[in-house]
């Protein structure tokens, strides 16, 4: 199957996949325990039968969306790097050697709406992990020198990604689509801001103090552990953490009134890329119309769509076409991505996308198509639950959007209310010229 396209898009955007949900009342098949501390920290504990393994996720509900100040794009991601610099008690090299000595698989990632620190390790090391993790969230400390050295590594990360035409295209798309909201920049940030990072030491301390607070973090622990003992440990390690979360001053995006179009050039060689985007609403399981854009994406532009059959399989005008409904905390973009085989077909591909949109606005999908989609979501979810990390890794996006995973149930229940008419009205509502941004990237000859 066309894994290449999907992976490519997935890797580039770090965006949410379609919602994963299962049928009936027991969507999420595991018993979930909650611990909430006085300081606002919430922990979600999910014991599962996984011999001796635990996945430990610290989900910070801050991502590049929270970079609202001028010249600070890319900072949430940079700060993720700084979280590995250590504390007085466990300096960076000591933190590293502890993680090494317990053979943990440890890493972190940042996207628009969240920053996630995750470790997989043997159950017997849970207390050690909680000790070092809670310590760095409460007592992070690094020198100016360490801060400045790390900025070099982040610039290196920018460089390695920058060679891809997709990075260039998506950066331009967002810059064009958004006027005020911080989704204007990507998670890695603008190069000028990445370059300026060594000068922002003081700002980094303020960033930590504002966002790395218990009210803004959710702990997620999945695997083979004792719930009672773990709860006691959470209270011991995380209770001293002081409240103090400050809301970022994100300016809401003003309503778009005209279609936007831009063509850009890429220095290397590539087939032309086309991205057509429409402003979607923020993720809200109660907003049926917006929820309907998730099945709409798959049915109109996914691998089983008529358009895919036409452009990819029969006419072979594109290398691939792939949708992303854009599940995000604030209103974001529903996008369709395509790589066009021949430059002269760019307009044709765009017109075919528009034709598909009109068809979905005028004719309802069948109930059978919808049922297949619901079945797909159910099995996609069930088949991902194959290890503690498999379970844990699908949850942070829901946690960051709503602070909880109960939303999965709510979303799925509402999902069942979506009818062919809901999908039609979603297509009419969202796919308008006033909401659209179209970007074309051409390579060097």
């Amino acid at each position, binding site marked *: *199957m066309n894994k*290449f396209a999907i992976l490519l898009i997935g*890797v580039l955007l770090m965006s949410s996949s379609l919602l994963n949900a299962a049928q009936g009342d027991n969507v999420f098949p595991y018993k979930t325990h909650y611990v909430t501390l006085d300081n606002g920290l919430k922990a979600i504990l999910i014991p599962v039968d996984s*011999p*001796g*393994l635990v996945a430990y996720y610290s989900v910070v509900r801050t991502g590049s969306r929270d970079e609202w100040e001028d010249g600070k794009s890319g900072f949430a991601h940079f700060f993720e790097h700084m979280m*590995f610099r250590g504390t007085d008690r466990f300096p960076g090299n000591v933190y*590293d050697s502890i*993680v*090494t*000595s*317990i*053979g*943990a*698989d440890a*890493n972190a990632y940042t996207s628009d709406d969240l920053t996630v620190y995750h470790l997989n390790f*043997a*159950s*017997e090391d849970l207390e050690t992990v909680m000790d070092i993790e809670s310590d760095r969230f409460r007592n992070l400390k690094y020198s100016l*020198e360490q801060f*400045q*050295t*790390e*900025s*070099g*590594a982040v*610039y*290196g*990360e920018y*460089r*390695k990604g920058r*060679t891809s*035409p*997709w990075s260039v295209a998506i950066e331009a798309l967002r810059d064009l689509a958004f006027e005020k909201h911080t989704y204007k920049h990507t998670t890695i940030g603008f190069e000028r801001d990445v370059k300026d990072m*060594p000068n922002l030491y003081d700002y980094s301390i303020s960033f930590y103090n504002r966002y790395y607070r218990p009210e803004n973090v959710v702990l997620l622990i999945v695997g*083979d552990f004792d719930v009672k003992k773990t709860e006691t440990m959470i209270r011991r390690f995380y209770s001293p953490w002081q409240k103090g979360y400050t809301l970022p001053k994100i300016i809401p995006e003003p309503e778009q009134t005209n279609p936007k179009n831009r063509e850009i050039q890429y*220095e*290397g*060689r*590539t*087939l032309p890329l086309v991205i057509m985007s429409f402003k979607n609403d923020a993720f809200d399981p109660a907003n049926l119309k917006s929820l309907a854009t998730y099945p709409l994406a798959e049915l109109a532009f996914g*691998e*089983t769509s008529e358009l895919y*059959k036409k452009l*990819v399989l029969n006419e*072979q005008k594109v*290398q691939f076409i792939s949708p992303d409904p854009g599940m995000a905390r604030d209103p974001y973009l529903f996008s369709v991505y395509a*790589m066009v*085989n021949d430059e002269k077909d760019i307009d044709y591909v765009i017109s075919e996308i528009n034709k598909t949109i009109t068809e979905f606005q005028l004719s309802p999908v069948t109930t059978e198509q919808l049922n*297949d*989609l619901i*079945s*797909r979501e*159910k*099995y996609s979810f*069930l*088949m991902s639950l*194959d*290890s503690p990390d*498999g379970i844990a890794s699908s949850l942070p996006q829901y946690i960051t959007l709503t602070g909880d995973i109960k939303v999965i149930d709510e979303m799925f229940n509402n999902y069942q209310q979506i009818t062919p008419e809901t999908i039609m009205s979603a297509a009419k509502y969202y796919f308008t010229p006033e909401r659209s941004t179209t970007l074309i990237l051409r390579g060097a000859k």
Partner: protein
Amino acid sequence: MRTLLFLSLLLISLTFSNNASEGMMNYDPDKTVLLESSQEPVISFKIWFKSGSQDDPSGKEGLAYFTARMLSEGGTLNNSYEQILLKLFPFAASYYASAGTEMTIFGGRIHKDNLGEFYKLFIDQLLNPAFSQDAFARIKENTLNYLKTTLKYSSDEELGKAVLYNKIFRGTGYGHISSGTISSVESITIEDVKQFFKKYYNRNNFVLGLAGGFEKDFPAKVFSDLQKLSDGKESIVKAPEPKPVKGLNVTIVNKKSNATAISIGFPIDLLRGSREWYALAIANSYFGEHRNSSSHLYQVIREARGLNYGDYSYIEHFPNGGRFQMPMPNAPRKKQIFEIWIRPVPNETKHFSLRAALRELRKIVDGGLSQEQFDLTRNFLKKYVLHYAPDMNTRLGYALDDKFYGMKESHLALFRKMMDQLTLEDVNKAIKKYLQYDNMEIVMITDEDKPLKDALVTNAPSPISYATPKPDTVLEEDKEIINYKLQISGDKVEFLTLDELFK
């Protein structure tokens, strides 16, 4: 300790499952790997065909890869590809064929609720592939685009690795990337694909792998269905013998970019399963554990100096390193290289970074590991390998690799056992025996050729300045790196342009 014991048993149980099939008469236990787990609701299929890019006929490089894609995306005589996509859609399932250098896997995963319907499509793909003109044209266009643009422009590090492997193994079956070259892919015909399929996807050339909650009689059914494949021979190919690398050979690929990707390597005669391999694995993990801050190279180049995003080393082929944190199974090779991957560094530090990496290699070859480094690394690995195969599908992949390497017990179980048995002396002996710093291939994807060649050949100093202050220890060490001598002679430096690659 209970935990670790339990995990060890889990790994060892793979071996038991292998043997458990011996009593059954309706499938060949030597050609079957079963990991049964009745509680597991998902069933994994991995049918290993003994074929890969090493079997590509000369002038038809890329044929194994092309044939595999024709199975993944080409439809069958009974169902077109689009019908298959529609039928699999409600199951959230897919199947695929993927061809590596020596191993091709035809596989898929399915929830047991949908096993019956899925299996019909899955086996039909193998028994009645369509090899349609439409799919052929689409896949050809796709592969050519990859070779002409994506591979050359979108990731300099992947490009550097491809050039390195091609260089080390030129003239052997490993001497081209699996997608082939532009001219070879252009020359592939549907008839080539059909013949390749007939020759290698035959009933005597597979090992059936199944994992998860399948019924007892299911393996026999699959095995008997696979007997409907065409008759043919088991493919047995000797390990390639690359020409010994003499001296430091540098390939400079000139590409406009503000950063330089560096890949370095040389062949080693060592495969997993032997005691020495696990000893060298400890040394390698210390020196350059993949995408882990415990890597010593990472500490020197990224952590202390902030020159790039990461620096790692390998003693086994690790495809898609930018995407995966853990080594993926089913990319086995009978011939391996020792490889160093320096992620893109600013152009002005390329000579310095190369020196820094090779100086560290020299230090570990000459000095070995200390007791403390050894203890830390083996304790790390003993637990870290538990993350290599966290789910049934990956475990099945490792079990097939065990068969490929002729291992009597599971590699992952042996790995952990060896961490208790090996000594510092074993590790340092393995380093001396297998690693060296005089003979290797070096590939640099960078923005200039002649000035870099001159600097390398004359050992011109490569001064470095940092935008930010560095501790004295780093600055002191820099003085040595700046003038670190590399014996590179002018006739060993080759220039390549992007247009010359993968022609």
